[in-house]
């Protein structure tokens, strides 16, 4: 009997191509809209997370000063000392790497090219803490660090602006009035956050920078990579209390340093993009509902229109169940077809748009299944109920129907 209904439903679809197309279109648009919106939203969230994790999502950056927009008075903020860094390394639990930084601005010169940039004096921990990888060459050796040798690892921006096509590894670069040997190149990372081109820097052993460039032992900042099993905010709190003690801050005195927690920013940003995704999904869900109402209308109209046809079928010996099944199969076929086309359309759209927007394509099985199930349910419900009413008429009543 199902086979019969299938045959009859396909014949009915073929006979009324326009109507079938319109029914399907509502579902296609609804399903495609929901899936596209949610998939793109997920992609945007993933993209934000990825950018933040490039910053090092388990990373704390500790700087002197009260932080953004506060503590203006009282002279320049007191820098950190080697001992502070050692104390954090030794006394705070859950710390993987601690990378002190002494920074200064320099003009880098190679042959006839020059470029204003920043020198970061640090240790090998810096590469690990900031998730930097090298595209060429190597990081510092133990003796180079110990002795404060004049060697450097350059960012990709330096390589492109000073060296062009020349292989920089082994070349000698002049920074202000000292010269240093390039031993490695950082992998290109791109803009991470406003104004911070992490590719535009020269990384040297901290001892070399202190001795030859800054001329003091001030540590301008240090990065702390936190063991992922630990909570960054708890580690941040321990560092705060340790530093307060070391910097002799008591009672209600405000911190004269600040800790930037990338994880917190990441969480805030991803919860913001998730809210956006939810909003888009809600808008898209409305379009799915509108598509559903479209199907409902077409089904209702078509059943009314086809009541005479139902009368004919009943008169020549169809039983109620067969007529009903035919309509049901027709509705299910159309809405499933619409659902499948909608899913493929969404797939094409999301792949296209996410590559155009440079966000990752994140396939979400759940939303695909959900949208499809909703489309199918609408088809079943709105195909079934009007047809049931018509099929329960006596054949003569149905035939009389105008």
């Amino acid at each position: 009997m199902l086979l019969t209904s299938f045959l009859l439903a396909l014949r009915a679809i073929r006979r009324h191509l326009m109507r079938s197309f319109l029914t399907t279109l509502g579902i296609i648009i609804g399903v495609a809209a929901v899936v596209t919106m949610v998939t793109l939203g997920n992609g945007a969230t993933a993209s934000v997370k990825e950018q933040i994790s490039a910053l090092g999502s388990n990373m704390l950056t500790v700087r002197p000063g009260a932080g953004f927009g506060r503590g203006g008075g009282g002279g320049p903020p007191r820098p950190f000392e080697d001992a502070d860094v050692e104390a954090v390394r030794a006394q705070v639990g859950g710390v993987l790497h601690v990378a002190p930084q002494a920074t200064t601005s320099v003009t880098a010169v190679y042959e006839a090219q020059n470029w204003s940039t920043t020198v970061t004096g640090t240790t090998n921990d810096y590469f690990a803490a900031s998730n930097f990888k090298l595209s060429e060459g190597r990081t510092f050796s133990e003796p180079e660090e110990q002795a404060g040798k004049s060697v450097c690892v350059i960012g990709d921006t330096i390589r492109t602006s000073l060296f062009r096509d020349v292989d920089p590894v082994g070349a000698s670069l002049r920074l202000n009035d000292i010269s240093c040997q390039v031993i490695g190149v950082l992998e290109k990372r791109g803009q991470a956050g406003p104004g911070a081109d992490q590719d535009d820097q020269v990384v040297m052993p901290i001892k070399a920078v202190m001795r030859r460039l800054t001329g003091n032992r001030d540590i301008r900042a240090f990065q702390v990579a936190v063991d992922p099993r630990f909570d960054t905010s708890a580690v941040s709190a321990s560092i705060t209390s340790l530093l307060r003690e070391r910097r002799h801050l008591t009672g209600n005195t405000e911190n004269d340093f600040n800790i930037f927690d990338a994880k917190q920013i990441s969480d805030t940003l991803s919860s913001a993009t998730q809210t956006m995704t939810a909003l888009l999904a809600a808008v898209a869900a409305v379009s799915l509902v509108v598509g559903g109402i479209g199907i409902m209308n077409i089904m209702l109209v078509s059943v009314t229109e086809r009541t005479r046809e139902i009368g004919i079928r009943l008169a020549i010996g169809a039983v109620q169940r067969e007529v009903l099944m035919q309509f049901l199969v027709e509705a299910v076929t159309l809405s499933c077809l619409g659902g499948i086309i909608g899913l493929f359309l969404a797939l094409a759209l999301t792949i296209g748009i996410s590559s155009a927007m440079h966000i990752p394509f994140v396939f979400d099985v759940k939303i695909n299944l959900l949208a499809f199930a909703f489309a199918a349910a609408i088809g079943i419900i709105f195909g079934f109920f009007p047809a049931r009413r018509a099929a329960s008429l006596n054949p003569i009543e149905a035939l009389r129907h105008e």
Partner: protein
Amino acid sequence: MSLIELRGVTKVFGSGQSAFQALKGVDLDIEKGEFVAVMGASGGGKSTTMNILGCLDTPTTGTYRFKGIPVETLTNDQRAMLRRRYLGFVFQGFNLLSRTSALENVELPLIYRGEDRKTRRAAALAALDRVGLLQWADHTPAELSGGQQQRVAIARAIVTQPQVLFADEPTGNLDSERSIEIMELLSALNREQGITIAMVTHEPDMAAYAGTIIRFRDGLVEERIVNKVLA
């Protein structure tokens, strides 16, 4: 026992103030192999009777026995099975599925009977051949004349090889030449295949093809006449 037996059949449409009694106690017998013409003024209850005979509608009171089966006690689906197995119906307005080829229209009852594709096709083509429309098999009703559409409807009614064919004013929408073709066809089906036929008509010329004429008036059988010419 007759093939068809109506006893004291009444039919009331509507209820309360607007109730209308279309049949007021009809007794009627039709024997196997008979060709009966039902005549009478409009509103006399001819169509109502035919619908009850064709198991498309049920009497309000009274009994209808078809092959001894008390039809008024059957469920909708059981009556559908009776129609499917034993009955064919031809309407004044043809009632073909639109946008559907003659062949598919004729096949339809066989689909509900669960016949396989090959059997369906062969039987449908044979039925179309029987009504002289073999070369029109692929045409939709819109591409056929009234007379041709009615012949497709007859092919659809006979494709299941029914025992009884009911026809409610089958020539009502046709000119006299087409009407004669239809009557010749029905008459031949009755003679050659032994199909029992009950047909409503207003025209004495058409009724002349029948062996028995039953005249209705105000919801009652007024008279039953044996066609002397044919007898």
